[in-house]
Each structure stands twice: as structure tokens, then as C-alpha cells.
């Protein structure tokens, strides 16, 4: 069964249409790039899949279920925003995730924190923005989820940390799980993607495997993206 299935998904904010009839299917075991310029509907699509937004019409099904407590238990979501409670310590967040997510792998998280030199005793408010993003990514990737939805996971960190983060993503997702990465920094993530979805004005402009795209158009995803979205 598809891990994510969107069916004529529409979302409008007042008169502004953010998603206009999205149909897409993501199978298990794929790393999918959700690509598009700012305001193309990437975040809206992800928020609907996490249950943070209710679609205006159509539906998004995760593992065959509408977003709710059951899907939230198998979806690991990294928002663009920093959601860490500033009064907590890193260790508090670890136990918070352990408490609420039965698929949270504490050893894995502690391992990753050690590798990045982040102390569990650090108060979250004392961390820099980039370090907070790393902590958040570690928490999200230490879950053994079925679907990872990562909204701009590399937007706020330096290029060196980008490589570490991408490696973390590839190393930590299990083969039955799928990863959706939304970004406009295509060049940096191109080498890890299996499939790409181009979003343009709330509609799917292209949905293809990376290999097919390279073969059919004779160019990289980044180059093709620049062609499709030329201003």
C-alpha cells in the first residue's frame, strides 16, 4: 500500500488558492524531493499530511488513513519553525519524545547528539538557531517512523552541516520508510533523491523519478528546475 496518497487535494486561504487539485502517490522506500519556489504550496501540502491543516476538499491518506492520532504515530515531521520549549534541556526533549513516541530510538538520538558535540545537559535557550535545528532533526530522525516529512531541513544551516544532515537522513531512515524533503535548495540534495515532485502555483508540474528525468531531459534536476521555473 502507498504510504502517502493525495486525492484531488485542494486548500484555499480565503480567496487565495494554495493547493489546486493535488494527486500523488508515494510508495514505501523512496526519498522524494518536494520542490518548488516560495509560495508554491510545499508547506501547505506537508501540513495537511501531518494533520496541522484541514484541506478545503479532497483527501490525504497516510497508510490508508486520514490524518489523526494513528497517522501521527507513524509520521515523523520536521517543521520549518523551531518548536522546542525554550525552558527545557536537551535531555528533557529526549524523554519527551521517548514518552510520546513508541518508535523513538533513544540510543540512536544520544549517539547523534554525541557525534555533533551537543550536550544533553544544555538548556535549549542557550543553543544557537543552527544547533536547535540540529537537535530537532536528530529528534525527528531518531524515530523509526513510516513516513518522514521534512520541511526545509537544510534551509537554516551552513553547507558543512547540510552534508551531515543529509547523511543523517540517508543513514537513519529504514528501507520500508519514505522520506519527503521539501526545499528550494535542490543542488544540495539532488544526489540523495529517488523521485522529484515539482510544485508550481499549487499544482503538480512534474512527478518523476530522478533517473527518468535525467534520461528524458538530459539535464540535472537543478538545471531542469531552473528551466521549468524560469522567471
Amino acid at each position: 500500500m502507498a504510504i502517502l496518497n493525495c486525492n484531488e487535494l485542494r486548500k484555499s486561504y480565503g480567496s487565495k488558492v494554495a493547493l489546486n487539485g493535488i494527486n500523488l502517490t508515494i510508495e514505501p522506500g523512496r526519498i522524494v524531493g518536494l520542490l518548488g519556489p516560495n509560495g508554491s504550496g510545499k508547506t501547505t501540502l506537508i501540513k495537511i499530511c501531518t494533520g496541522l491543516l484541514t484541506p478545503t476538499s479532497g483527501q490525504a491518506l497516510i497508510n490508508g488513513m486520514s490524518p489523526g492520532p494513528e497517522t501521527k504515530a507513524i509520521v515523523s515531521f520536521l517543521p520549518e519553525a523551531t518548536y522546542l520549549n525554550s525552558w527545557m534541556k536537551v535531555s528533557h526533549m529526549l524523554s519527551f519524545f521517548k514518552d510520546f513516541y513508541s518508535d523513538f530510538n533513544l540510543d540512536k538520538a544520544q549517539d547523534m547528539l554525541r557525534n555533533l558535540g551537543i550536550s544533553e545537559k544544555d538548556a535549549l535557550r542557550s543553543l544557537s538557531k543552527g544547533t536547535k535545528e540540529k537537535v530537532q532533526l536528530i529528534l525527528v530522525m531518531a524515530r523509526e517512523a513510516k513516513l518522514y516529512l521534512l520541511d526545509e531541513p537544510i534551509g537554516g544551516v551552513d553547507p558543512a552541516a547540510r552534508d551531515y544532515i543529509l547523511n543523517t537522513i540517508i543513514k537513519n531512515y529504514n528501507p520500508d520508510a519514505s522520506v519527503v524533503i521539501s526545499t528550494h535548495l535542490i543542488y544540495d540534495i539532488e544526489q540523495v533523491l529517488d523521485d522529484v515532485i515539482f510544485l508550481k502555483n499549487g499544482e503538480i508540474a512534474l512527478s518523476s523519478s530522478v533517473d527518468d528525468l535525467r534520461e528524458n531531459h538530459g539535464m540535472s534536476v537543478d538545471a531542469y528546475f531552473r528551466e521549468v521555473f524560469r522567471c
Partner: protein
Amino acid sequence: MLGKLMKYEFLAMGRVFIPLFGALLLVSIVNSILGHFGFRVSAGIGIAVSVILMVGIAVIVLILTLQRFWTNLLTNEGYLMMTLPTGPDNLILSKLFVATIWGFASAVVVTVAILIMAISDIDLSSIHNGIRYMFSQIPFTSHQITLLIFQFGLMLVLGSLANTLMLYACMALSMLVNKYRALVSFGAFIGITTVLQIIMTIIMVLAIRSHLIMDFESYIHSLTAFSGIQIYTWITIVFTAILCALFYLVTRYMLKRRLNLQ
């Protein structure tokens, strides 16, 4: 899931309340000890300090109740809380129960603190006698008094829940707009309290009017004091319970269907 959410909610609010309670009790104990050594303050100052304490703690309870709901669910932290594998019911109830418990705990601690400060001035046995005298003057049976105490307790708890839920509903209604959310919440608060005032006035007028038709005066005289109080308490309890349900459903609907974190 509710238990786990409440645990973290207790910690988040306790972070402020526990040191506050500690400081309050410490100050009142020091004050009481100083009193023994003759450093007495006048009754006027004592009363003023007590009033300031009560108002101060009430304000802190209010601010924390607002802040825990607003920051934790409706701003960035909402991305974490709203994607936990649970529904809006557990999120709302955990906040509601914990805020209510800390609220009542604050009332108890302030009372204890004031009693400690006043302890050297108060003759405990006279308080005891006073309470006994009060009860002996109430023309009800002990059975009726037990019922009344239960009803007043219920009114207190329901009233507190309704107030908190009204604040939650006002904040949740701000999800209807994308800008000026705090302002919209405040507007909702003004609007809801105004409408409630109007409704209560109408109920009161109608109640009196309907009695007038069947001769209000003889109706009042036909009531015993106890049955009069009973009518009042049951109307209040039912009305408050309806308000609780209404505010809860509004909050739940907004969080489930109209959530729009920015």
C-alpha cells in the same frame, strides 16, 4: 496519553509556581517569627499585604493559564504538540485540568500564608468557636448543609472550568484570522462576556416575570429558605455546565478543523 500530557504540563507550570509558593511561605514564616519578637505591623498593613498577595497570585494564575495555551498550542510549539499522536481532546483537557489544579493550589497556599502571618494575632479557638456558632445559626439540617457544601464546591469547580474554557475558546477563535490574533482573542473575550451578561439579564428578567404572572410574592413566601437556595444553585450549576460544554466544543472545533499555525 492524557496522563503523560498532564505530567509535562505540571512541570511547565510548576517551574513558576513551586518557587513562588516556597518564597511566599518563607516570607510569611519569617514575618510570623519577627512578630514573636515584637516587630509587629499594624492590622491595616497586614490586610493590605494579604489583598496584594491574593490579587498578585490570581494575576499570575491567569497569565500562566493564557500563556500555556497560547504559546504551547497556537504558536511555534504547536508544531510539536499538535503532531503528537493524540487528538485535541487530550491536549485541551490536560491544560484545563492542570491549570485548574494549580489555581486551587494557589488559593490554598495564599490562605495558609496569610494564616501563618496572622497566627500570633489570632486565637485559633475563637475561630473554631466562631465557625461552630455560624453553623448552629443556620436553620438547616446537617444533611442539608452537606448537600449545600457539595453544591457550592461543584459551583466553584464548574465556574473555574468555565472561566478557563472561555479563555481557551477566545484564544482558539483567533485561528480564524491570519493577522492581529491577540487582538482578535481580546475582541472575542469582550464579545463573549457582553453576550453572557445580556443572556443572564434576560434569564433573570424572564424568571421574575414568569413568577409575577403566578404571583411572585406568594410564590416567594411559599418557598422555604432551603428550597429557594436549591433553585438558585441548580440553575447556576446547569447554566455553568452548559457554558463549559459550549466553550469546550468551540475550542475543540477550532483546534481540530481551523488550526493554522504560522
